[in-house]
């Protein structure tokens, strides 16, 4: 089972590169802390997922690189080749001379249709190299021009061309303070379009990752590269091989399918957030020890209190008691309690088999119409990840992103009400009506997540 990664725009290409780097360094590291046989099957499963070997000396990433400007792609290609561990296929890229100028409509309505055939041919070729195509993993920013506009268009094309394949979109949520003036417009358009064609949206918020870099990684001058590396580490901790079934004998060959089946079967709820623990600078790892009960306790509190990282968790938040008969039709939950639809916990490292995950199977964590048997799943492997002796990740379909979504839609709506910058979009064929459709779609998503109980 293999995953074809589609890297879109500057952001998507840079993060994609870091993801392959993280995966490769994890596989080649000597930190595995498990039997040789275990390590070998982990290695093989990882190779099958992300790389094809063909005749070349080093594995070639199963990826398609798309950008309108050549600069980032050529940098990415040469950096990968220099690593000596892996590389991109030179023929598997598409770039033009001119960017989308941060205009979503330009990427979606102009560049997309114009270059559809070439891009989809590249994707098709990459898909044909897989014995079993597990699906697509697209990486892009939500607020930019090429990545978001063209990305939304390409996702739609993927859905049309591969109706039975899984599509997971990884999107980078822009900084709240803003890099681009129309970022909220772009975000609203991207999210609403992706919600139609994608199976799940895995979201990383730049603000959150920035905080992690500052507070957990102790980085003073935070660069995009630092942020991207944290994101890549988190993604690697989810997508590196695991045993997805209790007592399974083989590493899962269907990572995207297993993930989707656990978290996003309901078409109204597709927003996934990601948390991991522990996260710290590499040189501090040697001086730290962790216990599973401690890690699990923290991770659970991060979930229910919607904490972005292990520092600054609000320990006061507790799930509402179901023993008390509710006076209203819905049990009255504290506002800051984060209700889940479904959660997936991934444990890597020593003694994972003995970890008690009962606290995640508490029915009060979940919406009333799903029981924990359906709503919770755990993947495990004894193989340690990226030098962490023990590590846990949480992929959650919950109210994690409700507030950021509400913010973005609110800001965009305010701008739209005064008709600001609309002409930049109508110029490329995105009309006011399209905006209204997008607003409506996202309001629906917000309302669905709000009334979870």
């Amino acid at each position, binding site marked *: 089972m293999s995953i074809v990664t589609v890297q879109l725009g500057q952001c998507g290409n840079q993060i994609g590169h870091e993801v392959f780097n993280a995966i490769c360094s994890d596989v080649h590291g000597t930190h595995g802390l498990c039997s040789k046989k275990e390590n070998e099957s982990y290695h093989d499963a990882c190779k099958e997922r992300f790389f094809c070997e063909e005749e070349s000396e080093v594995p070639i990433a199963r990826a398609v690189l798309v950008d309108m400007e050549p600069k980032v792609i050529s940098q990415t290609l040469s950096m990968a080749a220099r690593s000596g561990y892996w590389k991109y296929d030179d023929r598997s890229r598409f770039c033009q001379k001119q960017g989308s100028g941060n205009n979503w409509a330009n990427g979606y309505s102009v560049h997309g249709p114009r270059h559809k055939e070439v891009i989809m041919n590249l994707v098709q070729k990459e898909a044909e190299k897989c014995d079993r195509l597990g699906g697509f993993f697209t990486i892009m920013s939500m607020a930019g021009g090429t990545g978001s506009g063209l990305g939304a268009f390409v996702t739609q094309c993927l859905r049309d061309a591969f109706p039975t394949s899984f599509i997971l979109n990884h999107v980078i949520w822009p900084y709240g303070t803003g890099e681009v003036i129309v970022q909220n417009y772009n975000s609203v358009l991207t999210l609403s379009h992706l919600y139609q064609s994608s199976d799940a949206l895995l979201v990383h918020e730049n603000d959150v990752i920035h905080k992690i870099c500052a507070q957990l990684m102790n980085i003073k001058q935070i660069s995009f590269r630092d942020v991207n590396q944290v994101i890549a580490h988190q993604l690697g901790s989810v997508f590196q091989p695991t045993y997805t079934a209790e007592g399974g004998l083989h590493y899962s060959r269907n990572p995207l399918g297993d993930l989707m089946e656990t978290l996003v*079967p*309901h078409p109204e709820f597709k927003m996934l957030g990601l948390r991991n623990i522990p996260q710290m600078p590499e040189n501090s790892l040697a001086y730290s020890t962790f216990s599973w009960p401690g890690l699990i306790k923290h991770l659970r509190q991060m979930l229910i209190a919607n904490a972005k990282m292990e520092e600054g968790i609000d320990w006061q938040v507790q799930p509402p008691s179901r023993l008390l008969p509710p006076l209203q039709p819905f049990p009255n939950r504290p506002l800051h309690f984060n209700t889940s639809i479904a959660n997936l916990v991934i444990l890597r490292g020593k003694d994972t088999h003995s970890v008690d995950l009962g606290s995640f199977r508490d029915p009060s964590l979940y919406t009333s119409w799903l029981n924990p048997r359906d709503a919770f799943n755990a993947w495990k492997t004894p193989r340690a990840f990226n030098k962490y002796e023990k590590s846990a990740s949480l992929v959650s379909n919950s109210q994690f992103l409700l507030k950021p979504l509400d913010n973005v839609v609110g800001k965009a709506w305010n701008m739209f009400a005064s008709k600001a910058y609309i002409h930049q979009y109508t110029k490329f064929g995105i009309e006011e009506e399209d905006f209204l459709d997008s607003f409506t779609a996202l309001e629906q998503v917000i309302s669905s997540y709000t009334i979870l109980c």
Partner: protein
Amino acid sequence: MGQHKEVFYPLPPVLYQLLINVLFSIVFFFSDNQIRFVKSALWYHGYDRPELYRLPSDGSAGSRELLLAFSWLLHRLSLLEQLLARNRVKTGDETSVSPEYGLEDGVDVRYLQWLNGRLRFQWRSLHAQHQELCKLLHKIHLFTSGSHMDQILGHFSVTETDLVRQPENYKQLLQLLESETMQLEAFLEWKQLEPVYWQWMVMNQTDFGRCSFLDSNIADHFQRPLPTKISSKRDILCCFLAGELFYRNLPYFFFFPLFFLFSLQVKTGGEELQKEGFSATARKIQESVELKLLDLTYLCAPKKNKMHGSCRLVFRSKHPASKTGFGSATEVIRELQMREASLERELKQLREECRQRLDEIAEGLDGVICISP
């Protein structure tokens, strides 16, 4: 209905054990209580004779009923064929279709949507897996093409390729094939003796009051010339049941009115008509019914559906030099039966036309009496 004497078969436990073994191999649930298991499994398969379900739960009586149930399984489910098919050694590559699913009701619709989504995703995973299987099979078939002794096949199957790679596995395969051959031989022997078994069953079960499928009299009833006078409702019912038995692939609601009308006509018209007139009418009706039946057999014969069930996969290049079907024997038989029915229909039609033409010719000839065939 009164209790039947347990004379011939004093060993219900043995029969229960037989049914358990048989049912267990074709049903997928199991209950600790063996008697209950037998009853529920038979119920699951649609056996609805109330006498069986009234049998004591300690298994002390009912060998006749059990034997009847066993025979029913033998007849209705093609039990032996099913078991043989299940245990068949598969040396070729096969493919099959997936079963259907049902959903509970009375739950939150969002939960149903969730389950539906999961099903959709599982189906997609299955689809991807299937595509992978096809891709790998294609690789094997392509790489081994021209290697097979059988010119029609041309290439190795997965099992054969595995044997080439690991020749030591052939012993195991040989053992399996030998045991399958033994089973097939036993089956052939059974097929020869089967009429004796049914005869014996009929002999022993004739005092069963109800028209059951076992009652060969019912079957005869249908093939015998029609009675000049329909005496009772029972006869109508028997006609109907016999029809249902012989043409159970046909929608029986089509039959019932047909038979019912027919008998009604006979009954009401019988008193008024002269004897000759009546038998002529009866013959006419009989002929038209038979024609209709033939038509129906032809129309309702199961459509050839190669995508259903298991079938052998053979790789063909773009220029198919020879085309050989790998259908099962039953499929071939079904097809031949279909063709037989249509040919017979055609024959009847042509005969009728010939007769008419002969009559016309005879009318034009003076002094010649022509007796049409």
